[in-house]
Structure formats: C-alpha cells, structure tokens
C-alpha cells in the first residue's frame, strides 16, 4: 500500500536517517534542525504537504503505473504526453510556491531515465536491470521517497577521460566486484537536496568508452549507507539564516542546498545495480536524464513568477509603477518568463513513447528550453534590480530598523510611498536580493546556467538534433538551385 507522506511525516523520516554531514568543518549532529539546512528541508517538505491540498493535488499526485495507487508525481514514471505536460506544470507550480529549488525533480528525472536505459540494456544483453529497477521503483513509490539524482562527477582535468585522470577517483567507479554486489568509490559534486534525500541514484556523467568501463555504473544507495559523507556547499548570504528569523533572509521559509557527496568504498548489493560496465549505454542514460532534467527547469518559471510579483510590488511601494518604462520592464519580464514556459510545455507536448513504455520529451525542444533558461532568468533578475533601485544592495539590517537608537532614521529615510510601512518595503527588497544575488540566486541564476549541463552542452545537442539537410533542401529549391520536387 503506497503511503503519501505529508510534511511532518517526511521530516520524521529524515530524522531516522543517520547521515554523516559536515559544514564549516564540523559534523552536523542534527541535520533536520540545522538553521542553515532547515529552509531547504522545508522546501522539499512542501512537495509532500501540497500533494494533500485539493487545489494542488491534481498536479502533485498521480496513479502509479505499477500498482494503480495514488502516488506523489515526483516518484512517477511518465506514462503519457499528459504526464510530461503535468510535470512541467508541477515545476512551475512548486517554483511559484517556494521561490527556490525544491530539490525533488532531479531524482524523478534519474528514475525516468533509468526506466528507459535499463530496458534498453536488457533488450541487448538479456540482463535483468529493468526488473531490478522496477522493484526499486516500487520501493520508492510505496515509501514516497526523495532521491538525489547524482550524475556530476568532480571530473578533475576536463580534457582527460576518466581512465586517463591522474587521480582515478575523479569519476565514480567500481573498485571491487563481490559475489553479492559491488564496491564503489569517488564523489558526486553539486548534489541538490542531498541531505534531504532518502536515496541516492548514481549515474555516469559523460559518455564512457571501453577503457572507462569501470566508470560506467549506475546504482542506488540509501542516503545513509556506510562510507557516504556529505560536505555542504556554501551559498551567498547563507549565514543570514543564523541571525534568527529576521527578514534579512529574504525568503522567510524556503531555500535550497547542494553538497559534495563522497563515496568511500561503499557497498552496493546487486539488486540495486542498474548498469555495470555497459559503457555503450552511458550516452543514452546521460542524454535521457539530460532531456528530462532540462525540462525540469520549468521550476525557474515559477521562481520568475515570484520575482516579477516582487518587482511589481516594489515599483508600487516606490510610487514608480505608473512610469511607462517600468510598466514596459514588467511586460518584458513576463514575456521572458512565459517564453520559458512555452519551452517546457512544448518539449513535453511533443513527447514520445520509448520502448520501455516511458514517455520522453522532445530532445531538441528540451535542449532549446534549457538554453533559454541559461539566459532569461539573468535578464529577468537584471530588470528586477533595475526596478528595485539601489536599496536592494544597500539597505540596513532588520536590527537597525528595530534599533532604539537609529530605527527612527531607517524608518524615516527608507520610506517610499507614505501609506506603505518602511518594513514592507525593506522586506520585498530583501526577497529580490535573495532571488537575484542571495541564497536563492544559486538556484535561480547559476543553477540555471550549469544545472543539467552548461550552455555548451545544449548547443551541441541542438546542432546534432536539427534537421539541417531538410532546411537546406528547401532553401536550395526555393531559390532555384535545385529542382522543386513539390507542386506549388
């Protein structure tokens, strides 16, 4: 019987994990209540809580194709184009409710990619990866788990293949084969939501060749498996979260996190191994994951919704909302944001069925969407800062506003429209700061740039996927170089 956890149950499930987490050089004993990590836990928890709300459940829940039971969509394998479209809508919805990275898409994308690739390997080699995968999927769905999608290796010298690196651990690899499983070592960098996850799904990060076959592995591990250590990444302005619940944190409730995850001789039982040295399937796994994950940047549209709302609000607080250029900038922000939405809906709507029965996005459009994501949020953020004014980077702290000595001056000199409390003005500015250069900018900007692959990765795919021959053929015919083969 599948359980659909709520936020409280999710939090309790995390408390049962025995994770080894380091932050600022010290072991974090209580991960769930750590003030720096907690907002990111809240963001994941919202994917559980909102699944129970009638006004969101249509997007956040669906039926398992394995059991027919109601499950959280974040554990679903897409069974139709409609499922893919709903996934894009879910990204926007959750982004618009949290204004940050809610961390749960990457595991969903790993599951979907594996559902296709395990099937393909079995077709060729008569292996049983797909059967294992489905058993694992059932476990994930029935327990409503968060999976960390762990693809990115540290990679060392970018010009060298895994087997050519001086340090062999620069890419994750198998170090030992045992009768009941394998032993893996290495690390995965930038892992989104790592310490909020119950499971880690490991995938290769690039195409592997025969000489790299020890690196061509995919498997799943419990997040607290022996030998796994998490080293938390820092985010710009992160220690504002240590200042209590002041509005200087910008987003009062939510945030994201990334971590370096180190695997030091970790044992993986065979039933959790989904690819083992079949190096010729690494390209398919990476590309399938990338196509799903590039679609997942639908979330940035939701974050954009909040940023646009904040920009309009500060314009009104400043008394500038009627200026034609301000109105035009808000239009431009919306135009860019909805253009992004077009991309993630289009790649889903043009999706197709794979041999495993899983639905996959249109690869070209997913790459185009992600390429736009590497740019438009930066422009939306620039426009938000333009509208916000310089105070977005110069305003004093909440403590100064509350100070008996200087509070009255902060109140007086940072007032905009007289009917708006100064505190409201400062709060909305802090939110804009948070999204455009604070902790949430990690997700809204730099993750938009590099997450799911740096811009060049999409351009390579775009070049490969467009039908250039057809474009040239028609061009040549219409200008009279070649004979027209169609009736006008």
């Amino acid at each position, binding site marked *: 019987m599948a359980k659909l956890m709520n936020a409280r149950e999710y939090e309790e499930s995390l408390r049962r994990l025995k994770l080894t987490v380091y932050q600022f050089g010290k072991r974090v004993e209580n991960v769930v209540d750590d003030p720096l990590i907690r907002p990111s836990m809240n963001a994941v928890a919202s994917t559980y809580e909102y699944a129970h709300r*009638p*006004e*969101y*459940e*249509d*997007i*956040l829940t669906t039926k398992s194709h394995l059991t027919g039971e109601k499950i959280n969509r974040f554990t679903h394998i897409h069974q139709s184009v*409609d499922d893919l*479209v*709903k996934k894009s*809508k*879910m990204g*926007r*919805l959750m982004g*618009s409710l949290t204004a940050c990275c809610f961390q749960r898409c990457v595991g969903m994308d790993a599951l979907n990619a594996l559902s296709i690739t395990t099937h393909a390997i079995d077709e060729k080699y008569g292996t049983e990866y797909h059967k294992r995968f489905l058993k694992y999927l059932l476990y994930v769905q029935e327990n409503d788990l968060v999976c960390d999608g762990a693809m990115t290796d540290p990679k060392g010298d970018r010009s060298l293949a895994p087997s050519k690196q001086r340090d062999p651990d620069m890419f994750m690899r198998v170090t030992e084969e045992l009768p009941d499983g394998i032993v893996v070592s290495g690390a995965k960098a930038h892992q989104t939501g790592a310490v909020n996850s119950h499971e880690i799904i490991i995938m290769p990060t690039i195409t592997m060749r025969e000489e790299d076959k020890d690196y061509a592995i995919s498997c799943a591990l419990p997040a607290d498996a022996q030998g796994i250590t998490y080293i938390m990444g820092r985010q710009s302005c992160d220690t504002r979260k240590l200042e209590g619940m002041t509005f200087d944190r910008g987003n009062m409730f939510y945030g994201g996190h990334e971590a370096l995850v180190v695997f030091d001789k970790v044992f993986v039982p065979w039933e959790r191994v989904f690819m083992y040295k079949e190096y010729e399937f690494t390209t398919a796994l990476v590309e399938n994951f990338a196509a799903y994950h590039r679609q997942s940047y639908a979330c940035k549209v*939701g974050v954009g*919704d909040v940023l646009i709302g904040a920009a309009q609000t500060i314009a009104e607080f400043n008394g500038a909302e009627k200026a034609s250029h301000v109105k035009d900038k808000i239009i431009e922000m919306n135009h860019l944001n909805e253009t992004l*939405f077009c991309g993630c809906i289009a790649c889903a709507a043009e999706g197709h069925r794979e041999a495993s029965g899983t639905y996959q996005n249109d690869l070209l459009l997913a790459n185009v969407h992600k390429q736009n994501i590497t740019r438009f949020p930066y422009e939306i953020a620039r426009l938000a800062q333009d509208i916000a004014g310089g105070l977005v980077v110069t305003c004093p702290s909440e403590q100064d506003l509350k100070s008996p000595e200087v509070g009255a001056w902060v109140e007086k000199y940072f007032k905009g429209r007289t009917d708006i409390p100064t505190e409201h003005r400062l709060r909305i500015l802090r939110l804009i700061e948070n999204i455009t250069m604070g902790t949430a900018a990690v997700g809204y900007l730099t993750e938009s740039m590099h997450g799911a692959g740096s811009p060049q990765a999409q351009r390579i795919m775009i070049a490969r996927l467009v039908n250039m021959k057809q474009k040239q053929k028609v061009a040549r015919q219409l200008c009279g170089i070649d004979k027209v083969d169609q009736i006008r």
Partner: protein
Amino acid sequence: MRHRQGRSDTLIVGVKYCGGCKAGYDRVAAVDSLKTRLSGVVEFVAPVDAAASLILVVTGCRTACAEIDSADGRPLTYITSAEDAERWAADILRIHS
C-alpha cells in the same frame, strides 16, 4: 439532482480543482466566496464523495487540464475564471429561489 439525506433542499456539489500552475485568479478564494454566497443552498464536498450529484471543476485557466476521473460520469460544470464562478452562483440562486 441528488441531495444529502435529511436535507433535501441542499444541492451537494463536489469540488475538483486543477493543479493551479498558472491560475489567472484565486481558485480557492473563488470557491470560498461560493461557499459563503450559497450557504444553505449548496453543500461543497470532495469530488470523491458519492453524495455529490454535480462536480464543479475549478480550473485556473481555460486549458482546464484537471483530471476528471473522480467525477465518475456525474455532470460537470467548469469554472475557469472568477466571472464564471459569479455566473454559476447567480444561476444556482435563480433556480433555487
């Protein structure tokens, strides 16, 4: 139209929302306002409640992508905007009076 036993004058309506990814209005506020305006006339329940004789599908936009399996063949009325909600409330009050 079926009515809740013992309260034969009350119309039982199941409310099914879409997921609300880019709602053009506040769907929950619209339903709350219907609940207030139609109090004593309509009882709003979950769409899975078998007592509901009509399903009100409240969607944030005209794409109206809500999954309507739970309607189980019962008649559907779509609300895709705050104006739709107003119109529907007026219709119900007119029929009821």
